[in-house]
């Protein structure tokens, strides 16, 4: 297996850095061969993970850091986001599309993450914070920026509404 193209970032706990990580995620998705729309999906999902880490995980504490690892292979991307917070139970977060939650002004980050990538996994690292891993794989083959070869153009774009139905909307 080819080695992954890798970017590792350590961020101060500042919301204004979210755009920089989003841009890096889109670039890495492009390196993995995703079309522009799917690369934007990856960027938005990673953006949400980093916002969660800064705002909810690290609770805006300026002394804490967020670590982001982006790993691109010719057909897939994996992104790992670590905070230094106390953790939370992702499964217990309220459904933002249900009842009164629909009119809340926050609580949609995990829903958006899960809609825009193939998988989102949460792991609490005792005493070290939460780790969120996002993965997305292209279903077809196309030209990859890493191998420079031309393949067919089928990609794995998943409509957000369909993804929401798949996920059952049980996130915060």
């Amino acid at each position, binding site marked *: 297996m080819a080695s992954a193209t890798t970017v590792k970032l350590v961020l101060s706990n500042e*919301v*204004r850095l*979210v*755009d920089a990580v989003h841009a890096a995620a889109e670039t890495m998705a492009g390196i993995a061969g995703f079309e522009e*729309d799917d690369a*934007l999906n990856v960027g*938005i999902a990673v*953006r*949400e993970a980093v*916002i969660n880490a800064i705002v909810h995980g690290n609770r805006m504490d300026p002394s804490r850091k967020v670590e982001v690892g982006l790993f691109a292979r010719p057909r897939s991307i994996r992104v790992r986001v670590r905070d230094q917070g106390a953790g939370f139970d992702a499964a217990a977060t309220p459904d*933002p*599309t249900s009842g009164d939650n*629909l*009119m*809340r*002004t*926050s*609580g*949609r*980050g995990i*829903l*958006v993450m899960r*809609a825009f990538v193939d998988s989102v996994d949460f792991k609490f690292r005792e005493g070290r914070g939460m780790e969120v891993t996002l993965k997305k794989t292209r279903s077809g083959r196309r030209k990859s920026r890493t191998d420079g070869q031309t393949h067919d153009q089928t990609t794995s774009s998943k*409509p*957000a*509404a369909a*993804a*929401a139905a798949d996920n059952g909307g049980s996130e915060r």
Partner: protein
Amino acid sequence: MKTTVRTVGQVSVVDLSGKITIGEGDVVLRDKVVELLDGGHSKILLSLEKVSYMDSAGIGELVACFKKAREKGGTVKLLKPSGKVEDLLQLTKLWEVFEIFDEEAPAVASF
């Protein structure tokens, strides 16, 4: 994100362009809507045609604007969401909350 406001009849049409995201577009949107409401402009149509995408913070601000307008006896409606913005409104089921229009004339007439 940039905003420009046009007045069509009694409706304030806010043309938004760019992205509505945390720490940037969300604040711009909130400030503009509050400014309009405080100025007595209670019929607000947010044109999203040139908004490339939103994040959850931006979505939250749309909801906040909707609620704030309602508190002040006003109304916020949406015009021409497309692409990723449309996807996100459907995903979050806010498609069912907002009145959303594809054309400006019927949107303005609906207030």
